[in-house]
Structure formats: C-alpha cells, structure tokens
C-alpha cells in the first residue's frame, strides 16, 4: 500500500484554488457528475495541466449519458448486496449524536454513496482508454439514449470537509491511521467529511479497521473493481483519447497511468466502507438504489443477481 502513497506525488488541486480554465472544468464536473464537490480523482488529474482539459473533453460525452448513470447504479447496487454480508459496524449507537447531526451524517453518506461508484467507473474508463488509445481523429459513437439532466441535486449535502491537517491532535492521528491503513495518498473527502463529527468518525474507524482485512472484504473489493472494468471495456463507449494526446503527458505518462490505476484500486474499498457505515442507518434495499435517482422510462442495465 505504501507504493501508492509514493506514486501520488502530485498534490491534488483544491477546488477553491482552481482558476480560469480549470475553474470552468471543475464547474462542469460538478454539473455533469451531479455532485456538490470535486473529488480527489479530478483534483489529482488536474495536476497534469496540458492533458486534463483534453481528458475532460473526452470524458464529458460519456459521463452525461444515461448509460453511464445506470452503469454506476449497477455498481452501487452490487456493493450494497455484497457488503451486507460483512460484519456490521454499529457505530451510530455508540456516540451521543443529536437529531440534526444524525440528519447531516446521513445526508453526507448519501452524497458519497452516490458519487463513489461514479468515480470508480470513470477511473476504469480512463484507465482503459489510456491502455487502448484511439487513432487520431477517431470519433466515438455517442450512445443513442438520453442524456441525464445536468446540475447538483437540490437536496445533496455540500461536500464539506475538515482541513487535511486539522488543528486537533486526535483527529490528525486518526487521519494518519486511516491513510496508512488504506494506503491513501491523502486523506479522502469521505473521511474529511465525517470528521465534521469527530467522535462519530473515531467510532466508525475503530470498528471499520478490523473489517478491512476480512477476506470477504478483499473479495468484494476485487469484484467491484472487475465489474467496473467490465463496464469500461464492454458496456460504455470508448473515450476518444489518441496516442498523440497521450504524448502530451511526456515523461509523466507512466505516472498518470499508475495514478489512474491506483484510483481503480482505492475506490472499491471506499464504496464498501460507505455502504458499511450507511448500513447502521439504512437497509440494504435502500442502499441498492441511487440516493439521487433520475427518472428513466425504462431500464438499460438490469442489475445482475
């Protein structure tokens, strides 16, 4: 896991520090991905300033389709079904939380339960595209089904986060422990958000840590990764990234590929963790559905059993 920390040398660009073109792309990411903040994937990819705009132009037509949304719904439902077999955390009852705090924790969990599968699928799509670049001038077939509505869902919780290096020593220690245990390059948005309620984060982490090494947990993570790779290679349209465009990365090309592969490995555990934490509050059936569903007339992808 330490390897991954070393791979991620580029410091992700905070959303509030984005300027001009990057600020515009970050805005579009939130609109297209229907999310209230810009996650680590994009903030890390943004550290490749020449390639990132090209990458985004290529991602956008795929990410705003119903097929993409339903592929992510499929991953989310799969995660909920599989993670239910893992030991329960029961962290919620161990902390004296107020009514408003509970409401906000649930809303924050919904946010990540919605976005994490989308990040896994798009990372897999980008990974696949970089491994199989298209010829210059290749035009991907836009899927023939409808586009999803743009915009952050009205009731989505803002992606509010505690600073990566908080003043509180216990919180700093917990962040370090999470990072070390999960092999994270930086502390992920999910945990930084849960740190808004530090006592709750401590209770969650204390119970989650032993589950992470459970053989079934590792098996589920692998299943999710493979399912996303399957979506990328067989279900979703290819990104139009050509060899010429990849050359823009220069000597950083290997680094970019490693970073992207890293995301496809990190995200399945994050998806499972959010499901496990959410199971304290919600039923598996609830978690199988999208927290921010889009009404479609028919189903494109049937969830596998």
């Amino acid at each position, binding site marked *: 896991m330490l390897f991954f920390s070393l791979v991620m040398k580029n410091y992700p660009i905070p959303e*509030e520090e984005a300027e001009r073109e990057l600020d515009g792309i970050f805005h579009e990411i939130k609109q297209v991905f229907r999310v209230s903040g810009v996650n680590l994937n994009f903030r890390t990819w943004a550290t490749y300033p020449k390639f990132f705009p090209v990458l985004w132009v290529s991602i956008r037509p795929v990410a705003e389709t119903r097929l993409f949304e339903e592929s992510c719904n499929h991953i989310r439902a799969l995660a909920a079904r599989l993670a239910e077999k893992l030991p329960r955390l029961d962290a919620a009852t161990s902390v004296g939380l107020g009514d*408003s*705090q509970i409401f906000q924790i649930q809303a924050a969990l919904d946010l990540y339960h919605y976005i994490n599968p989308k990040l896994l699928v798009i990372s897999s799509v980008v990974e696949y595209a970089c491994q199989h670049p298209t010829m210059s001038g290749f035009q991907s077939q836009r899927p023939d089904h409808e586009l999803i509505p743009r915009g*952050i869902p*009205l*009731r989505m919780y*803002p992606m*509010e*986060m505690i*600073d990566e290096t908080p003043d509180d020593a216990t919180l700093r220690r917990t962040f370090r422990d999470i990072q070390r245990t999960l092999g994270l390059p930086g502390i992920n948005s999910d945990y930084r958000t849960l740190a808004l309620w530090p006592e709750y984060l401590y209770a969650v982490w204390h119970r989650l840590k032993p589950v992470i090494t459970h053989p079934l947990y590792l098996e589920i993570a692998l299943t999710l990764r493979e399912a996303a790779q399957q979506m990328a290679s067989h279900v979703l349209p290819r990104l139009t990234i050509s060899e010429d465009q990849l050359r823009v990365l220069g000597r950083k090309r290997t680094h970019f590929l490693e970073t992207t592969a890293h995301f496809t490995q990190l995200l399945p555990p994050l998806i499972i963790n959010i499901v496990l934490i959410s199971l304290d509050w919600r039923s598996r059936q609830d978690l199988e559905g999208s927290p921010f569903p889009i009404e479609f007339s028919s189903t494109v992808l049937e969830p596998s059993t």
Partner: protein
Amino acid sequence: MTWREFQRLQIVSRVNARFVSYVEAGEGPPVILIHGIPVWGYLWHGIYSELARTRRVLIPDLLGFGFSDKADGFDRSIACQAHMITAWMTQLGIPRATIIGHDIGGGVALRIATLFPARVEALIVMNTVCYDSWPIELMLQFGHPEAHRKISASLAVRLLRQALKRGFSSSRNRNIMEGLLAPYTTETGKLSLIRNAAALNTNLTTEITHLLSGIKIPTLVLWGVKDRFQPIHYGERLVKDIHESRLIRVKDARHFLMWDQPEIVTKHLLDFFDRTVPSRPLMV
C-alpha cells in the same frame, strides 16, 4: 456550554427543499430567537435557558448559517429568511410567536412583523439592521464573489475574529468567538458565509420603512449603546416610526449586548414577556 454541546441539542426540520437546524427548550408561549451575521444560534446560549423557564424557546440557524443548509444554490436574503421562518413556524404548528432578532435577524423579524403581521405576537429587536444602516463595510468586502478565491477559510475566520472583537465591550466574552465562528472554518462554511454576506441588501429594509408605522404589536427595541456596527441613532429612529415601541438603552454594551450585559438583557426580555404575553392567564 461549548458549541459542540449546543450543536448536539439541535433538531432538524425540512423547509421546502432546504433543512433548518434549531434548538428547542421549555414550554409555554413560543419565542423565536433569530441570530445575525456572521454567527448562528449559539449566540443565544448564554440567555436562552432563563427564557425557557416560562416560554417555549426556539432558536433556528438561518439558511446558510450555522448548521442549517449550507449548499451553494439558494437565496439567503433576509426576505428569503423571513419566508423560511414563517414556513418553518407553520411546519411546527406555531401560528404566532414572539420574535426576537439581533443584527440581520432583526431585519428578518422586522420583515415578518410588517409583511406577515398575523404571525407575530410581540416583537423585540436588538441592535438590528434597519433603514440603510447596513451592510457594514467588512461584510461588503467579505461578500464579494472573488473573496472565495482570495482568502482561505482559516484566514477568513482570523479576519472575522479580529473584526468581531469590536462587537464586545469586554475581552472575556471574546472566548465565545471560537464557537460563534466554528461552522465557518471549512471551505464550505466560508463559501456559505460569503454567499450570506453577498445577500445583504439595504433595499430589503428600506422597502419596508413605510410599513413600520403599521406595526400594531408590542415592540421592544433593545440597544447596546456603544455599538459601532449599528449605531444607536437607528434604534432611536425605529421607536419614532413604530408606535407601540419602546427603546431601552443598554449601557456598557456594544453589538453583542446579550454577551456584554446578559443579566440586564434577560431581565428586560422577561419583563417585556410578562407585560405582553404572560405565560399564564392573568388573574382578573
């Protein structure tokens, strides 16, 4: 009481597509305490318990403030906040209440009293914004959209802490500053506060000036006389325009009079309650 303890007391209510966090304590005629900018319901934690002995006290965080909804995509003007408060009252089954507002919370209270008079039993405003007394220079600068990119959350809180010191007459009260600014220490909190500041609009009090004389409910205007943010001459003007009103000047108090003179403020509030909306029916 620490801000974390106060936060734990908050319950939540959905108002249309947004959520409002609030503290509720006590039983009796309802009293709603509305904070100003840049603070939240925690402002009232020093005095609300005393009021809750005979009243049902409700302390909401305005939209975009404290631990109410801080999403970036809705109006936070005092006009919108007044609508939110009345919708929230309806949701809680409160047809009428005594409304107490401080700073822009006073602006919200004045709008409710003038535009939705049926919802107000009695009105108390403390060092309130009114007429063209606002926004103050600091908030005008803070509300600039570019402020989001120019200052970090930690710098924003440092600047606000420095500026707000001028709102207290005693340095010992400055200890509560950490709690008052706690919800704004994250980037989301900072952005929300910037949006709140951007929503400050003089027109929303000037447009109700002609309605002030129509306020027919008992009204108390409490003012910390040493306030540098909202000078007392605005309070003096208010009591001339609102017929049923009385001005009480609170000595040795600045903007945050409930912290500078908590006993005196509480006493005036309780006296006013007893005269206007007794907690028990008066014996005849």
